[in-house]
């Protein structure tokens, strides 16, 4: 039997929790009044719109730091998905097998 089928209820539950969390965040964002005028901090306002080499340095760094969480979560999520979807032929639980053998003998 495929591992994905074995763990389907768990994955479904995780999906439901994630969807609820996303909905809650959306609701908070829509319902809570907040005035924001897309202001940058003093550092960004000073450097990011000029021809200063610091401008490019900041932009590179910001792009790098923005991409890293997506890269990390994507990598770990992909790994978890791959581990759950592949056939579980790899590794039997030797402790359980040993306990079963001991019970049988």
């Amino acid at each position: 039997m495929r591992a994905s089928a074995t763990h389907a209820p768990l994955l479904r539950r995780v999906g439901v929790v994630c969807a609820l969390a996303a909905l809650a965040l959306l609701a908070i964002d829509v319902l809570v009044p907040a005035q924001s005028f897309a202001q940058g901090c003093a550092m960004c306002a000073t450097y990011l719109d000029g021809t200063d080499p610091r401008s490019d340095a900041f932009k590179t760094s910001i792009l790098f730091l923005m991409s890293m969480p997506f890269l990390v979560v994507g990598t770990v999520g992909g790994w978890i998905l791959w581990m759950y979807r592949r056939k579980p032929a790899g590794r039997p639980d030797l402790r359980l097998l040993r306990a079963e053998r001991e019970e049988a003998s």
Partner: protein
Amino acid sequence: MADPSAAVVRRFPVAPLRRDRRRVRPPEPPTAPPISNARIAVVTLLVAETMFFSGLIGAYLVFRGSAPVWPPPDLPQLPLAVTWVNTLVLMASGVTMIGALRAVRRDDQRRLRRDLALTGALGLIFLAVQGSEWVRLIHHGLTLSAGVYGATFYTLIGTHAAHVVGAVVWLGLVGWWVRRGQVTAAHDAALDACAIYWIFVCALWLALFALVYR
């Protein structure tokens, strides 16, 4: 006397109800979960470590990109050739660590001990070479307070070196458990977690080496 209804059932077998079929399904062979708890723990740690190093690298990118000349001409150049060799030493330790992981899955204790000892030795060689190069750089004037260049260099490479120290200590602990016969094919979680951490440290070094030493 034989039960006549049993003969009828044998002659005309009735398919079991759906709920009964579910009940009488043969038990599956016991398998470990696809991802062990130890792996989840160490991957969580590595996610945090990755973001920590991302912050340091982000700061490095800002300082490096902002500087008109990098590295500053009045400071000593980083030892590239020695560090290349040292990089190969660390990569070799990653290979021996994978060998130890394969050995424990085959329950080959002799090879496991040999590969773990080799991994630890290569990690210590890496640290010793790094330390000696640092001493030379400090003697030539590249100190932590020698401007942004020295500060970012020692922060990034020093933080990685601290992680290698942590990995070596962890490896020593696992080696101790291996000596006591506590790490086997059935109980390999400690080695598995340590190997993942070790390989992360090796991969991180490749990124830092490409970033800082070029």
